[in-house]
Each structure stands twice: as C-alpha cells, then as structure tokens.
C-alpha cells in the first residue's frame, strides 16, 4: 500500500475552506457545526476500528470545552487556534488517564463504562457551583492571530475555516493512521485480539492509544463548540450529546474518513430541514433516516465509495482454545 499523497489530501481541505467565501451565511454555521461534530465522530471511528464503541465521548468534548473556557476566562487567551489545541490537549490528557484502564474491557462493557464515566462527569459539573452548575458560564468572542472579528459574516467564516481546517487535518492524520502498521494492528485487534497477543502485540495498548486519539479529537471539538456558542454548560457531557456523535459514526461506517464528514453534514441538513418543516416530529424523521441508512447501507455511507475490500462474515474470532481438543 503506497503512502497517501499529502498534497492531494490537502487540496480538498483548501478548496472547501475557500468555498466558504461563496456560501450563504446561514450555511457557514451549519457546515462549521457539521465539521466539528464530525471530528468527534471521526474519533469514534478511529476507536471502532479496534471493535470498541464509546458511548461517552461527551466526557472529552466537555473536558475540552471546560478546559478552554477556564483558561480563556482566567488568562484572557482568546486565540481560536490556541483554544483548539488546548481543547485537544485537555481531552487527550483525560483520555490518557482513562484509556489504559478502560482498554481492559470490550464490547458492551466498554461502551457502558464510557457512558457511565461521562454521566459521572455530567453529575459532577451539575453540582460544581464554581463552574456555574447547571447554568454553566460564558466566555468571550474568539480572535484569530490577534484579529477581532466584528462583522458577523467574517466571524462566522473564521469559525467555519477553523472547523474545516482542523477537522480536515485530523482526517488526513486519520487516513495516514488507518493505512499504517498501527492501523492494521487496530483492525487485527477488532477481529481477534487473542491472536494479536499471540503475535506479541499488546491489544490493550493498541486500544488505549486509539482511545487517546479519539479523546483528543473530542476535546478539540469541544473547544470549537465553546467558540461557536461562547457559553458552556454540563449539557456538553450529557448522554444525548454523546449519542449524537455515535449516530454520525454509525451513519458513516468505519471504512472511509470522508464519510464521517458527509454523514455529519447529512445529519445537520436533515435535522435543520425537518426542524423547519416538521417542528414537532423532527426526531422521528431523524430516526427514519438512520433506519434507512442501516437497512440499505449496513456498512455506512462510506461503503458507497470505499474501495477497501473489507468483508464481514466468516469471522475467525474464535478463542484460541475453543474447538480444540484438550
């Protein structure tokens, strides 16, 4: 497998960023939110390649958001790029603490533990008055390299550009990771982690590393959400927030990086338009949309164009001793 061409991968990121100049203002914020949500979902896809799904990415999303909000208010740091990086570091550090512990579990136990941890964090935030309790607190408008954006459209475009560039670079990194030696080992863990251990690789270490990457992505996205809303509250860590990210990851499938962004944008569009035309039943429309994708594209939207020959079916994931005579 040849190394991906970095220049060719950067081109769509640059093109989509510049496209923002021509987009109507209302689509800028929609696309920016889609791109930021896709960043968390991309982390879930990274983790899903080891066979584990996190239902609690809201934990790292909130950690990134709260970390940036506290630093912004205490130290006056308003630069959007710095905030994004700090969010990623906050999420990644928390992932570094939790990852090695949670990597010992798999399947439904893994998923439920992540969910439980995010809800514990949510509960703690709710009761912490110094962080605003259930109301949260506000932060100032972000700047970029010292520039203050007074014009609304320019401010929206700045956020759009930050979201697209950050998620675009994360996507390129994920693409390189997927094709790397480590990425292949991650797929192997997903199929048969005991065989991976027999080959000398620590399956737990592989899962924990992917977990930290996913946490850093979620932290960066949390920082972006903070910049967009200029307000943070415990809802960032609530299970419905995490569920939305899983929703996008399920829509996308795990085969294609670009599918995550398409899925996130599709979700935002379906939600916006169904909310507009069917304000009382928009969740029903979303549910039908997800069911349709699962029914007709069980391997996700990415399976429409993914050239990878990853086939399901006759899994070899039988435990080593199983079926063997004593």
């Amino acid at each position, binding site marked *: 497998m040849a190394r991906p061409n970095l220049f060719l991968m950067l081109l769509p990121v640059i093109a989509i960023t510049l496209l923002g100049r021509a987009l109507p203002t209302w689509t800028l914020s929609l696309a920016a939110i889609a791109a930021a949500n896709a960043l968390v979902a991309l982390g879930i896809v990274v983790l899903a390649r080891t066979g584990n799904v996190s239902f609690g990415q809201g934990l790292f999303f909130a950690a990134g958001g709260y970390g940036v909000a506290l630093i912004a208010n205490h130290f006056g740091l308003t630069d959007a790029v710095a905030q994004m990086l700090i969010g990623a570091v906050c999420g990644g550090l928390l992932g570094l603490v939790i990852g090695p512990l949670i990597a010992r579990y798999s399947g439904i136990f893994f998923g439920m533990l992540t969910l439980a941890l995010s809800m514990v964090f949510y509960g703690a935030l709710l009761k912490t008055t110094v962080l605003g309790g259930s109301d949260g607190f506000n932060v100032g408008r972000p700047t970029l390299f010292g520039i203050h954006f007074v014009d609304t459209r320019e401010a929206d475009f700045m956020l759009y550009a930050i979201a697209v560039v950050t998620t675009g670079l994360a996507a390129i990194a994920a693409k*390189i990771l997927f094709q*790397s030696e480590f990425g292949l080992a991650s797929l192997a863990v997903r199929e*048969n982690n*005991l065989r991976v251990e*027999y080959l000398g690789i620590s399956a737990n270490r*592989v899962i924990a590393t992917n977990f930290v990457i996913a946490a850093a992505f979620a932290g960066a996205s949390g920082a972006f959400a903070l910049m967009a809303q200029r307000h943070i509250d415990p809802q960032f860590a609530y299970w419905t927030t995490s569920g939305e990210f899983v929703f996008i990851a399920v829509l996308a499938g795990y085969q294609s990086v670009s599918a995550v962004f398409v899925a996130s944008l599709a979700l935002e569009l379906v939600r916006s338009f169904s909310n507009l035309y069917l304000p009382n039943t928009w969740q029903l429309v979303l549910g039908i949309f997800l069911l349709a994708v699962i029914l007709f594209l069980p391997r996700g939207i990415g399976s429409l164009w993914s050239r990878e020959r990853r086939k399901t079916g006759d899994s070899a994931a039988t435990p080593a001793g199983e079926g063997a005579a004593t």
Partner: protein
Amino acid sequence: MSVVLSAQKLDKRFGAVVAADALSIDITAGQKVSLIGANGAGKTTFVNMVTGYLKPDRGSIVLDGIDIARHSPRRVAGLGISRSFQIPQLFVELTTAENLAVAIAGTHPKTLSLHSPAEAKGRRERAVELLQRFGLAQLADRPISELAGGVRKLIDIAMALVRRPKLLLLDEPTSGVSAEEKFSTMDRVIHAVAPDAATIVFVEHDMDIVSRYADRVVAFYSGRIIADGSPLDVLKDPEVRRYVTGGAR
C-alpha cells in the same frame, strides 16, 4: 543437544476433569516431537499451558532458564515460542499479506509506526518471502475470507514463523486436509519451517504423518504421558495401541 523447554510436574484440572496430571517433558533443540492421544487426552491443554493461554495449577515450564508458567501469551511469544491453531486464527477481513504484516509488526510491538504504511518496503518483501516458502505468494493480495481451509492453515503457520521462534508448536497441522493432500501439505510445512524453527512440537492424530515426520513421539492419555520415545517404539507400545491408536499400526 541442549534442552529448549522443560515442563515439570504440570497439573491442570477443569472441575472434575483432569487435563494434565503431573506432566513432565523435556524438549531438546532440533527435535520434531509429535504429541498423540485421543480427544481429551491433554495434548492441546499442554500446548495452551506452554504458550500462556492456560496457567497450570501446579508445576513449572522453563524456557532458556526462565519459568514461563505464569506468563501471558504475549510474553511467551516475546521469549520465542510461537504456535499455530487447530482452527486457524486469522484476520479474515484482511488480505494474506496484511495478516503477515500484523505478524511482522508483532516483532517490534513497542515501536509500531503510526504513519509508515503497513506493507512498506521490507515488510511486504518479508511477507511474500514467507508465502513463497509455502507456495502461496500468488495469494498475497487475496482476502482470507476467500481462501480454503487448508490454505488458511498454512498461512496460520506462516504467521507463527515470522518471529523465527526457538520452539514452534503446531496444533494438528493436517486436520481438515484431504487424505491425498496430507503428505504434500506436511512436506510444505516441514520445508517452509526448516530455515526458521529448528524445534517443532506438533499435535497429530494421523499415525502415518507421525511415523513419517516425527523424531520423537509422546503419547497422552487422561492427562498423563503413557509413552515417550521413537515413533517405532511408541506406536508399538501396547498401552498406546490400546488407548491411542486402537491397533492402527
């Protein structure tokens, strides 16, 4: 010749079932040792204990002076013991070369590259070279899910060979292979394994294979060793004829 592996007084019980009863065996470098016995005799339990999948209730397993009885499969692999499985344990969604690439990655587990392509130059060549030994190079880019059971078995063995193990354990390498192909399959295995694994222990039910390829035969019955010696002597042993071969030879 030096002893590669020394297992002493291994006990293993699963409830009331005795899978290993004071098993003691020394494996000498360069030997091709065949483990025989009826189903449930304790052969695979012995292999699972040596490779770290099962921990013995009592006893020691010493490899190069290190007691590995409580080691994990990963640590055991790192010390130079590899195995193949009765049911091939492959990554069926990956291609043959990718399966071997994972095995090659296992030779430097702490420095897995996060950016270098899995089949980068060197790794791909090593994978193809291994497949060539088994006559499977043309299948390098085929997904495992498209391959027949016999071929999967050979790939499983090729993956175990990547580490150039001090001791290679093969669990029924010819099971599931037709009677016409069993000798050619075993010939391929022995030929392919020769450059990298001087010491081989294989579990086998086919006495024709055992008498043709083994230097030494160890017969198991109810978790005990009932005979240990040359194929000629062991296969003539009355207890072995009674409990294992059923008078096959």
